[in-house]
């Protein structure tokens, strides 16, 4: 296969985005264009990319070596060259496959969801720009090119969160997402720069880095590792930079499904896996990462228990699941983490799309306590949501079970018992809050909705596809007890962190524990919420409902603090001290001029006196000088 096709995987969505954007501007300012054209152009792009990805996948599967394509020198300073280059290895093609696949289904879904929206073309332009950036992130062959995609997805996230930009709240949420992500990017860029100076000069693509990274002293590697992880924290919404993700739900639901659940937020996990050669050398940073992941998982799950907004619950559950992924990659089990990325993409996208369908159906209401009993009215959505909820709760045979269980097992095997405990407890909480959502939304009684909105097929079909995916995605990574070959570990052999052989009985025992814990969560939710009555309005409150007031604290410290500092600088220092100094220097000259001007008193005798004085002193000088 021609490796230049790698570039086309990225270029096609990019061109599509550009064309859509131009057409949209044309459409709103000159002549209206039919939405069908937009739909066609939009959906074509991810599908084409997907097909190219499949071709690469097959070729790699048949034993082809990694594809490398470097069309031109991106930057060359000082004799060091950074190429615009793309790398198609097993990891990146794996990512390409699921990103484009999920992307394609969500495109189809969005065509239904956004139907009739004023910004239809704009939406797909942004969406495809996101696809292009995400694919660039994944396919890049050096950290700098990856960073282009990294920031690109952040930009698209900003644009799509603030899609309905006339509402202040949406734009504020977008800004928050962008700025918090930029804090992460600050870490990323610092890591990048340090890495460039210690190893990058020998070559800055992943191969060269992998070869030479061992030349760097461990202390520096630790700094690089932590700095890069700060970037991942921002993008993948981990403590302490998770605050943007719940607010990001202000965007349209397909955006939440694609960007803030399935793909972009997992970029941090991908990045850590991509730098596995670095993190392998610094297991203490990995451990730190795993703890951050575990605490994020727990913390987000606790918050999710009390939320009422359907999308916010899902957002917190995303943070929680991302925490699991960081446990895995932190402990060196990259392929396990990526396996969870993979399964999570299916069931979380499905959950969001189901939630979107619900929201549309009940007329843009997002509070779960204001809906209920939708089981009868939306049977299809009900069943797919059930699958997805079971999957996230870790009930076999749905996909989430296998990946989550493997993560917990890995944690146990690495003797990280605290992490294991937290993970297990979080699993129970997950089952609880997800079924709370599920029962309240679909089983509650007495919901009086006047009319249900019609769901088009373009929204239903993707649900079915993803429901199928959420059911079977777990089978690619079956544990040893069921199957000899774990397809994911096989494919991502370089990232599996070494095989951990486990006794079959132990493995089954752990599965049993996981299932029991999950079921316990479901039972509690059942008792509490299955017979939930719509008329009995539930009002959540308390510190958990208010997310531990973290947002308020951040706002007070950072936003207010910097605003105060800004005012202090511009008013007190700049105007009050510096400009005053300049102007008083100026005023000093004016005063001097005024004083000298006073000698011109318009009194002839004074002038005459000055004249006398001048002549006398001049004469005196002459007499003394000439003798």
């Amino acid at each position: 296969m021609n490796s230049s096709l790698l570039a086309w995987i990225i270029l096609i969505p990019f061109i599509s985005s550009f064309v859509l954007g131009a057409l949209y501007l044309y459409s709103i300012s000159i002549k209206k264009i039919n939405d069908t054209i937009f739909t066609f152009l939009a959906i074509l792009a991810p599908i084409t990319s997907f097909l190219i990805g499949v071709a690469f996948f097959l070729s790699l599967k048949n034993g082809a070596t990694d594809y490398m394509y470097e069309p031109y020198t991106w930057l060359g300073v000082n004799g060091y060259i950074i190429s615009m280059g793309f790398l198609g290895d097993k990891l990146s093609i794996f990512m390409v496959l699921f990103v484009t696949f999920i992307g394609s289904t969500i495109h189809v879904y969005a065509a239904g969801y956004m139907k009739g929206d004023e910004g239809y073309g704009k939406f797909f332009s942004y969406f495809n720009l996101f696809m292009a950036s995400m694919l660039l992130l994944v396919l890049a062959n050096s950290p700098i090119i990856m960073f282009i995609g990294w920031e690109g997805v952040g930009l698209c996230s900003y644009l799509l969160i603030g899609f309905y930009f006339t509402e202040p709240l949406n734009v504020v949420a977008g800004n928050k997402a962008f700025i918090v992500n930029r804090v992460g990017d600050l870490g990323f860029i610092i890591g990048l720069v340090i890495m460039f100076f210690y190893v990058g000069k020998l070559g800055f693509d992943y191969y060269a880095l992998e070869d030479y990274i061992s030349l760097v002293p461990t202390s520096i590697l630790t700094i690089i590792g932590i700095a890069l992880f700060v970037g991942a924290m921002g993008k993948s919404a981990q403590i302490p930079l998770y605050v943007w993700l719940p607010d990001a739900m202000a965007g349209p639901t397909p955006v939440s499904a694609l960007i803030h659940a399935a793909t972009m937020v997992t970029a941090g996990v991908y990045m850590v896996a991509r730098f596995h050669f670095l993190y392998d050398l610094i297991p203490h940073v990995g451990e730190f990462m795993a703890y951050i992941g575990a605490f994020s998982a727990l913390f987000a799950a606790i918050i999710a228990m009390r939320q009422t907004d359907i999308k916010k619950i899902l957002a917190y559950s995303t943070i929680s699941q991302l925490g699991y992924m960081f446990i895995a990659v932190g402990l060196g089990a990259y392929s396990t983490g990526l396996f969870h990325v993979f399964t999570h993409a299916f069931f979380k996208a499905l959950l969001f799309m189901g939630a979107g369908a619900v929201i549309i159906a009940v007329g843009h209401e997002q509070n779960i306590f204001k809906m209920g009993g939708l089981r009868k009215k939306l049977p299809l959505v009900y069943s797919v949501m059930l699958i997805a909820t079971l999957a996230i709760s870790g009930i076999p045979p749905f996909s989430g079970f296998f990946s989550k269980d493997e993560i917990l097992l890995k944690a146990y095997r690495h003797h990280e018992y605290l992490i294991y405990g937290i993970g297990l407890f979080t699993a129970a909480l997950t089952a609880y809050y997800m079924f709370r959502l599920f029962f309240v939304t679909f089983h509650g009684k007495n919901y009086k909705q006047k009319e249900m909105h019609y769901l088009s097929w373009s929204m239903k079909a993707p649900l079915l596809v993803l429901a199928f995916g959420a059911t079977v995605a777990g089978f690619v990574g079956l544990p040893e007890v069921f199957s000899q070959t774990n397809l994911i570990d096989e494919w991502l052999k370089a990232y599996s962190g070494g095989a951990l052989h486990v006794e079959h009985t132990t493995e089954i025992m752990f599965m049993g524990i996981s299932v029991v814990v999950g079921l316990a969560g479901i039972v509690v939710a059942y008792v509490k919420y299955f017979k939930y009555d719509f008329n009995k309005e539930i009002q959540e409150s308390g510190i958990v409902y208010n997310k531990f007031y973290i947002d308020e604290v951040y706002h007070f410290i950072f936003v207010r603090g910097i605003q105060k500092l800004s005012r202090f600088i511009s008013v007190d220092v700049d105007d009050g001290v510096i400009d005053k100094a300049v102007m008083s220097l100026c005023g000093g000259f004016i005063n001097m001029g005024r004083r000298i001007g006073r000698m011109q008193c318009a009194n002839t005798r004074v002038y005459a006196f000055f004249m006398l004085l001048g002549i006398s002193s001049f004469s005196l000088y002459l007499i003394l000088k000439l003798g």
Partner: protein
Amino acid sequence: MIEASFISYISLAILLFSIGIMGLISRKNIFIIYMSIELMLNAINIIFVTLSKYFGSMDGQIIAMMVMAIAASEAAIFLSLIVAMYRLKHSVNIDDFNTLKQKDTL
């Protein structure tokens, strides 16, 4: 005794010149000022004539004659100017003619 008389001539000139300067500085009446200036001119003339005599050269006397001639023509212009100024302000006080003074400073 040429030395003694030389010193007394010069002293006279200095005295006259000083009187002229004092008049110039201290008086307000334009006529008095004019007369003080003339006095100074004449003091200079005395010096010219004295030095001419002293050095035995006629140059000083010629210059003294020229100064007197110029002073005469100057007097004509000066007096006519004073008349014009008097017509304007009805005053011969020099302090009334400070029209070029800046009224208000910056």
